C-alpha cells in the first residue's frame, strides 16, 4: 500500500517533468539546430539531433556580431530601468500612503488613470520626445520610458497602506525622520514587494523590442532582442543560415536562463509574501 503510493508519487513527478520537457521543446530544438551543419538543416528530412557537435554557427555568431555587447546592453537596460522603477514607485507610494497634502487625490487619480493608457501606443510620440532630449543612442534613452509604471506605484501604495500605524508612529516618535523611516524601515521590511515589482519590470523591459529598435541606430547600443532579428535578415545565404540565428539565440538564452534559475526560489518567495493585490 505504501509502496504503491510512493510509486504513484514517482509517476506523478515523472509526468510533471515530462510535461515540462515537452513545454521546453522549442529550446532543445534551438540548441540542437545550433550545432548542425548547414546541410543538416537545409533538408526536408527530419533531423532532430546533430550528427556531430559542429561549432561553426557559434563562430559566425560571435565573430560577425557584437553579441556579448548586445547581451550586456540588454542587461544594463533591464536592470537599471527596473531598479529606478522600484525607487521611483516606492517614493511615490510612500508619499501617497503616508502624507496628507493638497492635490494628493488628483495625483493618485493621475497614476491610476494612466493604467488604461497602453504605453506601447505612445512609442511614436515618445520617440520624438526622447530625440528632442538628445537621448537617441544612449542607455538613458532606451530606459527612460520604463522608469515609471503605474501598476508598481499602485501595488506599493496598497502594501504601505496596510502598514501598522503603531510601527510608523513609534518610529517617528523615536526621532526617525521621514526619509529615514522610508529608507531604514519601509524599504527593508518590504523587500518581497520590491522583488516582485522588480521582476515584473525586468521581464517586461528585457522583452521589449520595438522601442530599442526606434531609439538606437548604432551597433554599440543595440540590445540582444533586436540584434537577433537583424541576424535573421540574412535570409538564404550559404554562410549565414538558420544555424547561425539559433546559435545566437542560444548564446542570448544562456545568461537569462542562468539568472532565472538562480533566482527562481527568491522570485517565488517574493511573489508569495508580496502577492499581488489587484
Amino acid at each position, binding site marked *: 500500500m505504501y509502496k504503491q503510493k510512493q510509486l504513484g*508519487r514517482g509517476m506523478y513527478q515523472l509526468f510533471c517533468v515530462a510535461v515540462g520537457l515537452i*513545454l521546453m521543446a522549442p529550446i532543445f530544438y534551438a540548441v540542437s539546430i545550433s550545432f548542425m551543419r548547414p546541410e543538416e538543416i537545409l533538408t526536408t528530412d527530419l533531423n532532430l539531433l546533430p550528427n556531430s557537435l559542429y561549432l561553426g554557427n557559434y563562430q559566425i555568431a560571435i565573430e560577425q556580431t557584437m553579441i556579448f555587447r548586445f547581451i550586456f546592453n540588454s542587461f544594463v537596460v533591464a536592470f537599471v530601468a527596473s531598479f529606478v522603477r522600484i525607487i521611483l514607485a516606492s517614493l511615490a507610494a510612500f508619499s501617497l500612503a503616508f502624507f496628507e497634502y493638497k492635490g494628493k487625490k488628483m495625483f493618485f487619480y493621475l497614476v491610476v488613470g494612466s493604467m488604461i493608457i497602453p504605453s506601447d501606443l505612445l512609442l511614436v510620440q515618445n520617440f520624438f520626445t526622447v530625440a528632442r532630449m538628445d537621448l537617441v543612442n544612449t542607455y538613458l534613452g532606451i530606459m527612460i520610458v520604463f522608469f515609471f509604471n503605474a501598476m508598481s506605484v499602485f501595488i506599493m501604495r496598497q502594501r504601505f497602506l496596510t502598514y501598522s500605524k503603531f510601527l510608523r508612529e513609534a518610529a517617528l516618535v523615536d526621532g526617525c525622520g521621514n526619509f529615514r523611516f522610508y529608507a531604514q524601515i519601509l524599504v527593508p521590511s518590504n523587500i518581497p514587494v520590491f522583488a516582485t515589482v522588480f521582476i515584473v519590470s525586468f521581464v517586461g523591459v528585457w522583452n521589449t523590442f520595438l522601442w530599442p529598435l526606434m531609439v538606437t541606430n548604432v551597433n554599440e547600443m543595440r540590445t540582444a532582442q533586436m540584434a537577433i532579428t537583424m541576424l535573421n535578415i540574412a535570409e538564404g545565404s550559404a554562410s549565414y543560415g538558420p544555424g547561425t540565428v539559433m546559435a545566437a539565440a542560444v548564446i542570448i538564452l544562456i545568461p537569462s536562463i542562468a539568472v532565472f534559475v538562480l533566482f527562481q526560489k527568491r522570485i517565488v518567495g517574493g511573489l508569495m509574501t508580496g502577492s499581488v493585490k489587484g
Partner: protein
Amino acid sequence: MKLRKASLGKPVSALPLKTKIFQRVEPYLYLLPALSMLILFTYYPFITNVIHSFFTVDRFRRVRAFAGLRNYSRVLTDDSFLQAVGNTFIYVLATVPISIVIGFALALLAKKKTRFSVVYETLFALSMAISIAVIAMIFQLAYNPSMGAINQLFGLSISWLSDPSTALLSLIIIQIWSNIGYNFLFMFSALRALPEDVMESSRMDGAVRSRLLFQIIIPLVSPTLLFLLMSGIAHAMTSASLVLILTTTHGATGQPGGATEVIMSFIYGRAIMGTNFNVAYAATTVGFVLSSIVMALALVLDRKKVSYDV
C-alpha cells in the same frame, strides 16, 4: 499633517520658517520623480497625439491644416484598419485566457512540494526568461514549411506563417508559449501562499476536488488572476513584436494579406515605415479608446467575483 506632528512632537507654528517650507514640499519631492516621468512619457504624448489627430500633418510631422474628423473617418473606413482591430481582439481573446488557464493548470500540477518539484517548477516557469524575439526566431524555423520541425514531425505541409488561414494562429501559439511561464509563476506563488489546510484538502476525490477548486481556491487567488488578466490584456492589445519580427516583409506589415495586422503594427507601419502620421495618430487614439474599453470591461466583470480578503 499628522505625520509631521508626530515626528516632531511640538506644534507646527513653533518651527523655523525654513523647516516649515521644507515640510510642506517634502511629500511633493518624493512624488516628483515619478510624476515627472508619468507626465512626460504618458500624459504629454497622449494629449499631443489626440490633438494632432485633428490636424493634417506632413511627413515631417509639421501641422499643415485643421482636419476635423477627417483622419478618423479615413481610418474607420479603412478596411485594413478594421481588419487590424478584429485581429487584435482575436489575439487578446485567444492569448490572454488560454495562457492564464495553462499557467494555472501547471501551477495546480506543481503546487505540491516533491523531490523533483524544483526541476519541473523551473521548466514550467522558464519561458518567462526567454525573450519574445528569441522565441520568435526559434518558432520561425520550426514553422518553416520545408526545413521546419513542425511539418517534418507531423508530416504536414502547411505554410504556417505565410498562409492567411494559419498565420495569426501561428503568432498566437508563440505568444501563449511565451506567456505561460509568467502566468505559471504568479499562479504558483499564489497557490503556495494559500493556507496549508486548503492545500491539504486537495487529497480528496474528484468531485469534491473540482468544487474545492471553483469555490475555494479560485476565489482565494482571484487577485492574482485579475492582475494577470489586466496586465495580459494591456499587453496583448498593443503588442506588435511578433508581427514586426515574423510577418512584416519590406514595408508591408501584418502579412500575409493583412491576416496578422494588429493595431500597433498598423500604427508602426503607417507612422514609421510610411510617414503617414495623419492615419497613425487617429489610429492611435482609436487604439486608446478600444483598449480602455476592454480593460474597463474586464475590470467590471471581475469586480463581482474577485475576493480581496486574502
